[in-house]
């Protein structure tokens, strides 16, 4: 009897693994079915300009990867994104720190976020073009805008939600100043910070692809959005679909690999996931 009781958690754990793998296979089957439907419909339609087949899209993806064009475009997009994301995080951290330190800072953050959060970042692109001209600074400007507000809002809410008992326990141990912030506040607010980073990433990625459609950094070396746009103009529809596929794949990879891993290593392990 007692042996069984001791085994229970282990069996539950392996059950969870089993569940995970069946869900994985289910998804794989759905994906395969979608690809098949796509292929069948495109063949029936027989118009590669409107809808290339799945096979043609994969071939286009392969070719533009091999000739180095697509990887270069992805690299351009990602480097812009990382620059904007980094600046966004730095500004969000500064604003949140100000908000944590003073009432004026708190009201400043509250006012700015309520003004700018509902404004789609892409709507600022005309202004950015006016200020910074056609080039990376304009793109980075809109990305920063996309990241900054949701992240600052999430961080601020996270800091405010740290339980008073935990704060008192920290100060009781002699934490103060930086050791209080880094040793207590930030890890305690990590669930909110992580979800803010996730949200900021998703906004930034969408905004970047949209903004890149308006112009390339230069005619030869635009990002992924520009790749999609120019290929549409040249009626290389298979390349357009290949570009879209890459946008989806990168979004999925960051969400499922980077953020899920971060979450599993931290808040999930610590039982802080809400």
């Amino acid at each position, binding site marked *: 009897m007692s042996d069984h009781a001791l085994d229970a958690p282990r069996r539950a754990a392996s059950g969870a693994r089993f569940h995970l793998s069946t869900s994985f296979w289910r998804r794989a089957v759905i994906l395969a079915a979608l690809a098949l439907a796509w292929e069948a419909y495109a063949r029936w339609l027989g118009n590669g300009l409107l809808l290339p087949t799945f096979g043609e899209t994969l071939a286009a993806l392969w070719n533009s990867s091999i000739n180095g064009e697509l990887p270069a475009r992805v690299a351009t997009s990602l480097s812009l994104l990382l620059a904007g994301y980094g600046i966004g995080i730095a500004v969000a951290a500064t604003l949140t720190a100000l908000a944590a330190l003073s009432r004026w800072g708190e009201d400043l953050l509250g006012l700015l976020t309520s003004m700018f959060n509902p404004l789609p970042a892409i709507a600022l692109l005309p202004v950015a073009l006016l200020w910074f001209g056609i080039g990376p600074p304009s793109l980075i400007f809109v990305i920063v805008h996309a990241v900054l507000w949701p992240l600052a809002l999430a961080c601020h809410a996270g800091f405010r939600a740290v*339980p008073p*008992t935990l704060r*008192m326990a920290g100060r*009781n141990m*002699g*934490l103060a100043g930086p050791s209080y912030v880094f040793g207590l506040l930030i890890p*305690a607010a990590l669930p909110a910070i992580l979800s803010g980073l996730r949200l900021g990433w998703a906004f930034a990625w969408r905004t970047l692809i949209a903004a890149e459609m308006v112009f390339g950094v230069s005619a030869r070396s635009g990002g992924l959005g520009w790749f999609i746009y120019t290929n549409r103009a040249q009626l290389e529809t298979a390349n357009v679909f290949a570009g879209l596929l890459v946008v989806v794949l990168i979004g999925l990879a960051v969400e499922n690999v980077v953020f899920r891993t971060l979450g599993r290593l931290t808040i999930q392990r*610590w039982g802080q996931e809400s």
Partner: protein
Amino acid sequence: MDGGRGPFREVSAPLSVDKVFLRYAGDAGIVTAVEDVSFAVEEGERLVLLGPSGCGKSTLLRAIGGFLPVAEGAIRLNGRPVTGPGPDRMMVFQEFDQLLPWRTVAGNVAFALRKARGLPKDEAWRRAREWVGRVGLARFADAYPHTLSGGMKQRVAIARAFAVQPAILLMDEPFAALDALSRRRMQDELLSLCEAAGSTVIFVTHGIDEAVRIGTRILVLSPHPGRLAAEYLVPEAARERGSAAFAEIEADIHARVFSGTPPEPQAVLADFREPSLV
């Protein structure tokens, strides 16, 4: 760790509370939570602040912890006025979320030892594991707090407070959120830890039986505003549950809290919650 006479424990006669008033801004203006309370805590004493809700006992303990300013009077630790929180007064709270969720059981204790006592990492971890074992959690030393029961979390908080070896331990109804059985076991274990270490303790509770079990001296507070109403020295013989002396002192506090020796008997009666029968 009975030989634990670290730098924190060298000075005796730890704490004095001198004509202290505590006030806070409530909905109806300034509320006086504690009025003109004075007492001193001697080395090795376990002083219990006992009273119904609203008597300001927790507020008073927080002021001693340095989390609240005094409106009048002074709280002194080893002769120096208390101006803020510090690890010379380690506090155990009632709430279970006083542990750092991102650190393991031993990690929580080790972190406190490094931050509060400035111990090097190895030494902090060695002592942390020792204290975790002492509260009976050796098997859970590497578990994260969210996997523990409420009672186990309180044990970790107690281990953390003891490990730092403060001048005085402050306990704010640490067992109030536990079920009756665990509460009783925790009281016994806390008592033996205190006796082994010779700790100086202020323990806040609204349970009369808990006060008699834990304390060497009991201060009864009456509510609205909190004032000292009575003082009991608990003799060694009365500490044993079920003994005649235990029942006698418990009945006497009962009678006094209900009978109206404190200034506002109705208020006391209305607010006083019977501790659950153990």
